[in-house]
């Protein structure tokens, strides 16, 4: 059994408990703070899955900014929830159906860490990983690698197929960083996605899906503009020095 498994189990159990507590709390302030705790726990779960960028975002946005904004909302709407009249049938049904659909969707996904997952076998994914992973200084070593590989191929034909990185790594390679061989990035710009940076997530977001990220930024900008237009101060003059704090 994976040694991380008990930790994951504990965290996920806590997530469920906090989730239920968030819904059941009548005090909206308590609810908001529990949501923050929920996000922090989820960030830990993502960390256990080595999804650092997701964990980072969850901690910064979910536990940080969202909590502050929800607290800001609480100042406007008050702290106590109106007493409800039992569960809402239709809402419960929709929630259960959505949950069931999501769970059904996960059955089609590859197992966590599966080496045969599409992201590892798909041509684009493979090229991506080959371009980024373990290359802390891709610029400095790119040329050397090419030469080294060719030399190695010439000399090592007789020695069956032992793992190249293992035999040649420590001495000549750059500090034994795990490099994937048969590197598609080496055929210059043929099939090159122009993303020679170590963080795969940033590479995908900023280069492969650059348009996507651009329009996401535009969406955030539009939201900001709408905010200014909808919630601008109508009455107060621009120069406000009220004593209220």
């Amino acid at each position, binding site marked *: 059994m994976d040694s991380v498994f008990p930790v994951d189990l504990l965290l996920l159990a806590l997530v469920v408990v906090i989730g239920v507590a968030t819904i059941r709390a009548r005090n909206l302030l308590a609810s908001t703070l529990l949501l923050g705790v929920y996000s922090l726990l989820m960030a830990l779960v993502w960390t256990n899955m080595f999804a650092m960028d997701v964990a*980072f975002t969850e901690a*910064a946005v979910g536990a940080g*900014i969202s909590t502050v904004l929800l607290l800001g909302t609480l100042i406007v709407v008050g702290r106590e929830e109106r007493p409800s009249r039992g569960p809402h049938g239709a809402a419960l049904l929709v929630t259960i159906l959505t949950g069931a659909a999501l769970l059904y969707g996960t059955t089609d996904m590859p197992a966590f860490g599966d080496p045969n997952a599409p992201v590892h076998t798909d041509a684009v994914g493979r090229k991506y990983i080959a371009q980024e992973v373990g290359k802390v200084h891709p610029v400095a070593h*790119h040329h050397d690698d090419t030469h080294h590989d060719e030399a190695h191929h010439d000399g090592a034909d007789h020695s069956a197929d032992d793992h190249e990185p293992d035999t040649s790594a420590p001495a000549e390679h750059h500090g034994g960083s795990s490099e994937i061989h048969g590197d598609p990035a080496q055929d210059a710009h043929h099939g090159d996605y122009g993303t020679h940076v170590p963080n795969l997530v940033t590479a995908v977001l*900023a280069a492969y899906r*650059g*348009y996507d990220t*651009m329009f996401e930024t535009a969406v955030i900008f539009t939201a900001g503009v709408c905010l200014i237009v909808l919630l601008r101060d109508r009455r107060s003059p621009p120069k406000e*020095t009220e004593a209220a*704090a």
Partner: protein
Amino acid sequence: MRDQVVPRVIARMLIPYMLVYGFYVASHGELGPGGGFQAGVILAAALILHSLVHGLEETQRGVPRRWVDRTMAFGVLLYIGVGIHGLLAGNAFLDYSSLALGATDPESIHGAEAMGMTLVETGVTLTVAAVMVTLFDKFATAARR
């Protein structure tokens, strides 16, 4: 909260580090975890903490509203500007290798790619930070009425 000592002292200790960390995340997005969005949120959180402790007016004396609004637009323009630079250089839109300014050796090209990503992420950082600050600003102003 201005007359409470503990939040004020803690905020004074935290805010510089939050700002530095925000800039670090923004500039190292292509090397480690993080990127424009997270960096923007961290920077905004620093400013929001300041206005929580010292009041909105005090923050806006240092970071005026109109500059926040301009930053919001500038971030998007920076992103699109990098894309259009690629077009003007005769490459595809958002082709970062055109930032190598004519150099063709792989080192320059890869440097240009990292540079393009950093520029683009900086744009995202600025827009996200400005929008988050505006969001808090509007909420706080609405709550006060």
